[in-house]
């Protein structure tokens, strides 16, 4: 009986810790704007590169546009994700963070939420440019894009944050992150690209929204495993 208020207050305390970590990361980014600026420009470059390499004529562009958007976000976020942890290595900030009461899961969740906001922001800026460059007008239910893109972004950011923390201690960490992240992220990329393609072409090839359900399952499973294992990554030495 007495446990109930205690439980609630410890949950609230944990949430407050996540919020504190989140505010710290947001404030650092607000002062420097390093991550968002570099991600934005990088993603823009990838979109331009692809549109030059593939000549997006009207019909073909709908087929490949989803893939280009996903890959552009993927490349852009990898550069920012490395920075997110590299910043904490300087002046032993990471060691200080490890001593905070919430444990690894709170730090991890806050980092994922921050990075999710950044990547979503970049996508919001990028999307109009993207639609103009590729002459897109979705033939399927465009509202579903608002569900698919965040789900795919969450898969990317959650895994990316986890594996960036994992590779931060290794030699040449900038190289290791994509090597580890891309294979793990591939199933989510596939589901996201196919879901976006179905929406843009409106070909009704996926009436049960199987790809969106798969993406949601992937998010739940991989985020849970990451939360459970993050303490191990943080304490690995």
């Amino acid at each position, binding site marked *: 009986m007495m446990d109930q208020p205690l439980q609630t207050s410890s949950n609230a305390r944990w949430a407050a810790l996540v919020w504190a970590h989140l505010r710290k990361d947001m404030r650092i980014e607000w002062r420097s704007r390093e991550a968002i600026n570099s991600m934005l420009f990088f993603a823009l470059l990838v979109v331009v590169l692809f549109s030059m390499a593939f000549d997006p004529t009207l019909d073909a562009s709908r087929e490949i546009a989803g893939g280009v958007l996903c890959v552009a976000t993927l490349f852009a976020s990898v550069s920012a994700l490395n920075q997110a942890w590299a910043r904490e290595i300087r002046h032993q900030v990471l060691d200080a963070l490890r001593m905070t009461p919430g444990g690894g899961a709170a730090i991890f969740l806050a980092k994922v939420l921050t990075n999710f906001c950044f990547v979503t922001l970049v996508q919001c800026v990028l999307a109009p440019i993207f639609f103009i460059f590729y002459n897109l007008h979705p033939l399927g239910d465009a509202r579903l894009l608002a569900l698919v893109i965040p789900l795919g972004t969450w898969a990317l950011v959650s895994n990316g944050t986890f594996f960036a923390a994992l590779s931060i201690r290794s030699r040449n960490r900038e190289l290791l992150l994509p*090597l580890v992240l891309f294979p793990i992220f591939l*199933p989510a990329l596939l589901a996201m690209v196919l879901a976006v393609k179905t929406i843009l072409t409106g070909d009704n090839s996926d009436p049960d929204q199987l790809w969106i359900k798969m993406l949601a399952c992937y998010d739940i499973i991989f985020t849970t495993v990451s939360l459970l294992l993050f303490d191990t990554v943080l304490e690995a030495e």
Partner: protein
Amino acid sequence: MKKLLIFPAVLGILALMAWGFYQAIYIAPTEATMGEVQRIFYYHVPHGILCYLFFSINFVASMLVLAWRRSNPAKSLAADAWALAGAEVGTLYCTINLVTGPLWARPVWGIWWTWDARLTTSLILWLIYVSYLLVRRFAAGSEMQALAAVLAVFGALDMPINYLANRIWRTQHPSPVIGGGPESGMAPPIAAALGWNVLAWAVWGLAVLAIRIHLERRQQAIDNAEAVAALAAD
């Protein structure tokens, strides 16, 4: 005593593999529509099944590394040798599976490769374990063992997806012949040849695994001795 046992064991494994080869090439009947090229089935399928076995060994050993890391470093080190050996042999078997597949597909389908669910998830599985082996080269010491074990958990998550791929989706890859529902199954001589080959390649793979674990344990002993010597020199 141990050395005396190795010789008959090696002979036994070689005999079993020769028997498997004989079953697959001479005893099993030639398939009606595909002809002789279908015999690659007796190599492709066993390697596909067995790469699950070795990746599972890698997964269990990795969980043990995580469990024993703090409480029992000596046992954790032993489990790490098992994890490494499991991943290496599993990757080898997965590679053979991925090479024999296109060799069969080219004459039967007319193409080397197609991006259906089974083939794609198999390739992803292979990529994940190659990245696992890369991580092990990029970092060192007990820190690397913990990080590699964490990555192995993520790799193991892909195994059920791969197993279910041609059960959930309609794939160009043939639907499962074992445990695939009421219409699956094989004629007895084909099942016998497949069974012998699964057994032979399993025993062979386990032997390679044992040798690899033995090697890794020796390497760990050398590293440990060098570390102790360096400490003593100070």
